[in-house]
């Protein structure tokens, strides 16, 4: 299954400049595609557009075409799209519905909205909890979890929808190293399970670990793209406001000092 963006642009209502221009992007089954770029380069807008939330819930005008398995989704309402494409936000607490007393009900919230048969809802919910290894949180109150746990519960809630595509906007921004590790493992597990994931992140160490391909945005345009390893190794990253992953920085520092980077490998 493929999500395709063709020459997509976006201008928010009331803005005099478009926030996104001429984006061509393909998201295929089982692939993790990383999105990097300086602050305000258009990462969040790309996530909102790719998930269909812009313009459906955010005021603005979209250009270009978005295709799901070749079908134009222009006229689809959000609830139709949300069964296929799910989106996660930076802030774990705003993603919880705030109306559920247990993690189980929180994760079941999406499938319940779709009116699926009771047993199907229950099975999907357990499955999602299990995939993220948080079965033991099922009976806990979601409001009383740590930020990292809340972020995982939010992801499980998306997963229970069984979307073919998942869009994540800086899912680890608020998390400590332990929480970041949990989310990274979850992304890898989901992709291994066949979902395609678009993940915007400042933490390039995380992208280096999970992404297969990458795009780098600047002023709303794609300025670099290709296999993740190549993009993360590109010398232009610095001027684009993106930190290179630790390993790349270290190797560059060695080269700059006239030391053979091979020596870093012992």
């Amino acid at each position, binding site marked *: 299954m493929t999500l395709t963006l063709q020459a997509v642009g976006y201008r928010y209502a009331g803005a005099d400049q478009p926030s996104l221009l001429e984006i061509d992007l393909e998201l295929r089954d089982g692939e993790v595609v990383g999105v990097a*770029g*300086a*602050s*305000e380069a258009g990462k969040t807008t790309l996530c909102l557009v790719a998930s269909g939330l812009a313009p459906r819930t955010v005021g603005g005008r979209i250009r270009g075409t978005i295709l799901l398995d070749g079908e134009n989704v222009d006229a689809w309402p959000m609830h139709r799209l949300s069964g296929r494409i799910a989106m996660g936000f*930076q802030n774990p607490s705003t993603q919880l519905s705030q109306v559920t007393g247990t993690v189980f009900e929180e994760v079941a919230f999406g499938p319940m909205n779709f009116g699926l048969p009771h047993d199907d809802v229950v099975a999907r919910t357990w499955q999602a909890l299990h995939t993220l290894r948080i079965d033991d949180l099922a009976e806990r109150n979601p409001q009383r979890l*740590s*930020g*990292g746990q809340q972020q995982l519960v939010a992801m499980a809630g998306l997963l229970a929808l069984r979307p073919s595509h998942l869009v994540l906007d*800086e899912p680890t*921004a*608020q*998390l*400590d*190293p*332990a*929480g*970041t*590790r949990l989310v990274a493992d979850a992304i890898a597990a989901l992709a291994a399970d066949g979902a395609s994931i678009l993940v915007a992140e*400042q933490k390039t160490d995380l992208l280096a670990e999970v992404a297969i391909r990458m795009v780098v945005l600047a002023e709303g345009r794609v300025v670099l793209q290709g296999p993740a390893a190549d993009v993360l190794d590109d010398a232009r*990253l*610095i001027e684009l*406001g*993106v*930190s290179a992953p*630790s*390993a790349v*920085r*270290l190797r560059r*520092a*060695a080269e700059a*000092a006239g*030391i053979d980077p091979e*020596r*870093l490998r*012992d």
Partner: protein
Amino acid sequence: MIELRAEGLIHVYRTGAVRALDGVDLVIGAGERVALIGQNGSGKTTLVRHLNGLLRPTEGRVLIDGTDARELTVGQLASRVGLVFQDPDRQIFAGSVRAEVEFGPRNLGRSGNDLRSAVADALTATGLAGEEATNPYDLGQSRRKLLALASVLAMRTPVLVLDEPTTGQDARGIERVQGVVEAAAGEGRTVIAISHDMRFVAETFERVIVMRAGRIILDAPPAEAFAASSWETLRSTYLEPTLAAEVGDRLGLGSTPTDASLIEALRAG
């Protein structure tokens, strides 16, 4: 320039039974650059909120240059210890960048040229010069965070405390924060930062304090805090050493917490 001291600090939140701080003893000298690291919930934020009187100890005491913090008013404390919170949206209220940055120094009684230069310096340091008339909500999240930093920087307090200053910042933003820390330290101010970013910690600070469950479990310079002998302690609270530290250890070069120190060691070896 002032010295901060915590003695037998214990804090129990009214809503919880656990000790958020479980006996913290600490002395931070004037002009030190200190990083506080540890898992969420380990007590870092609780600790720094005692330094400017926002929280009062359940037991023990905090001394600001020898004076018990309990004897100082909020205003007196604010003029000594500037604290930048993690979430800028929980403080920004003014209609313009200038008014937002003026708020703190005005509260401390600054006015005229003194106020103008404090504001101008803070905006320059955070890369917001030229945005004086901008509405803070027209700035993106990461620049709003720099604005919150500027608004405390302009108070010119002898102690500057930063709670997670680099989250959501891109490479340039992190460099700006590093610049602010170094400039403040250069003026003899004390800088204390809570951070999850180990590379930022290793490169920017001269002392690393690791907290776990309300206690300090390690207090050492980066070279020692990220040395192989400390990894077990770090990992006990789910922290990882920097890549440079790992590579340095693998190559038998001793403790090399930063890229620069690793390169240095490679050269020497």
